[in-house]
């Protein structure tokens, strides 16, 4: 994940891609696994086994992202998040939950969560989402023009250029590319695309996203010598030059 910094102007702040993550999860085994897996991905993870401890740690420490289980002893995840938010803590939070219905997701996000992932999940999915949430990596909301290598997307005029050549995209393709470019250098999963570009939280039977991505890839790569939209095996996609 760390190799992305060199290519993007927005990454000029001293940031090597390594995050400090707080995991609040009462299942010891799951928490240990997460800690180990985050370490392998180059991040530092602290673990709290219950809501109270987690709240104290989060309140004191300076974390980039927090992963909070929803149902925990002593203090449930939503109450921890609400408590932190009321104390002015804006650290991005990803909620882990066994409850996956639309209502549960809405309640979770309303309590102050930034993303919601239903158990059981693939670690690659969790990692991709946590990296996208990282508050130090994403400062692109305000930018009107996204640039990745020679690819350029103007959010105001809805135009896309690669190496000064105009590329015509359908509205949905534009939104797809916009999302990929906003998170350039980061892995973006199919589910993330479905959620953020189509606003669907269900799992279509056929992998419709792959077809959309390959169509987009045809438009932004055909006629150019360098690939820019990469498929990350077992995880998703990444837009990256070079």
């Amino acid at each position, binding site marked *: 994940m760390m190799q992305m910094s060199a290519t993007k102007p927005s990454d000029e702040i001293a940031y090597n891609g390594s995050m400090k993550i707080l995991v609040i999860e009462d299942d010891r085994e799951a928490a240990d696994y997460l800690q180990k897996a985050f370490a392998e991905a180059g991040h530092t993870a602290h673990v709290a086994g219950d809501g109270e401890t987690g709240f104290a740690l989060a309140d004191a420490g300076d974390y980039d992202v927090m992963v909070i289980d929803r149902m925990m002893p002593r203090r449930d995840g939503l109450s921890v998040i609400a408590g932190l938010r009321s104390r002015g803590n804006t650290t991005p939070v990803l909620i882990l939950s066994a409850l996956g219905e639309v*209502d549960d997701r809405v309640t979770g996000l309303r309590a102050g969560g930034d993303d919601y992932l239903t158990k059981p999940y693939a670690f690659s999915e969790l990692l991709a989402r946590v990296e996208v949430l990282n508050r130090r990596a994403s400062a692109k909301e305000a930018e009107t023009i996204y640039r990745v290598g020679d690819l350029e997307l103007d959010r105001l005029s809805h135009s896309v250029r690669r190496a000064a050549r105009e590329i015509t995209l359908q509205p949905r393709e534009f939104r797809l590319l916009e999302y990929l470019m906003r998170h350039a250098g980061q892995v973006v999963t199919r589910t993330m695309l479905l959620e953020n570009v189509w606003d669907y939280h269900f799992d279509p*039977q056929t992998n419709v996203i792959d077809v*959309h991505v390959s169509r987009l890839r045809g438009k932004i790569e055909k006629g150019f010598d360098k690939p820019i939209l990469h498929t990350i095996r077992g995880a998703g996609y990444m837009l990256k030059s070079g």
Partner: protein
Amino acid sequence: MSLSVPAIMKTTAARLSALYLLLFAICAVALVFYMTSLSARMLTAQTQDTINDEVAGLAHAYQRGGLPVLARVVEQRSRQPGANLYLIADANGQILTGNVQSLEPGVLDTEGWTERPFYYQRFGEGELERQRAQSSDQNGEQSTPQPNGADAQSGEKGHNAIAIVLRLPNQMIMLVGRDLGEPERFRAVIKRSLMLALGMMGLGGLLIWFFVGQAALKRIDSVSEASRRIMGGDLSGRLPVTGAGDEFDRLSENLNTMLARIATLNEGLKQVSDNIAHDLKTPLTRLRNRAEATLSGKHNTADYRRALEGTITESDQLIKTFNAILMISRLEAGYSSESTTRVDLSAAVRDVVELYEPVAEEAGVSLQANIEGPFTVVGNRELVAQALSNIVDNAIKYSTDSTAAPAVRVSLERADGHIKLAVVDNGQGIPDDVDRSRVTERFVRLEKSRSQPGSGLGLSLAKAIMTFHGGRLDLLPGNPGLSVVMSFPERGEH
């Protein structure tokens, strides 16, 4: 109610009867007292009239012949059977003539009407009394009435009367009165009839208890009996409905509707556990066998990797199936959701068509859409999209075995008071020998589709979603192919 209250008082019938009995008794007693006092007053007034007539006659006799004539007339009248009371006394109260032997002291002191009935003894009766009393008591106290004991003695030895006391010109005193025996008898009659009435009322209370308890409340008992049976596990049991259309029937009918709903939910739950048992155990077994096979025997790293990747794929499929089952159950259970809003159905359908358009193109299927609108329904955009995407997904898959150019047509229009969303493919459709409604049952997969990926839950989920939206899902022959029609109620409330 204390614990000592017999069990019978715990029934509503007994309590109601007791309450009615008490109320009626109070009313009856009050009525009787009112009537009695009214009648007594009337009788007294009548008596006074009679006495007044008498006095007028006597006054006439006195005027005619003075005291001797008066005394004679009094003497005469006294002897007649059932005569009024007459008494002439001197100024000291010494009785001179008349039929009164003795009377309550003080009666003669005031002129005019006696204020209250007084106690007296008629002439002749006193003799008998005295003779009887002499054997036990010499001083004749018995004959001297005691004011306090007057009532107690009146029944046996004396009588009550009212009278008018007149002072004659020569300071002599005359008393004319009338026995109150008649009103006394009247009171006794009233008392007897009151007792009778109270007795009858008690009997009536028992009858009410019997009928209310035995006839009406028996039905409540039968309802509780039936509900006990149902609670015991017999969910197919229903409460009795007599057809009388009364409150009990309405209660039973409502409870029966509730029971039917519970039975449906219970059935759904049972089906879910059955399905979990059948359809999750199979892949779980496969998963386990694969791990076991990989552990036994010699393998290289690539083999292990492949086995583990297979395990992950298999578990992902399991999770999908599990999620679908959970979702169907929650939808069928009513899914008390605050996430329903007004949904632009036309936009939702367009989005799904757009989502599948590249997939169809890649599969060589032409996906056409004819979307009218805008139509708005109350529901959940995501659920509608999920249902439609399941159906479109199927349609694309099954249209590929079409004999002509594979095509899927999606249309949204208003028809017969419904908003109809139809997905028609031109594939082989469902064979005629298959019951179409069975296809939407969980895990039902037609023979030739078993090779296709999928859990067999797509249509079941779509159907559950339509039911949740107050609509329905129909499978119709597409000539060729299959036409799946989702009908939404025009003003969708659920």
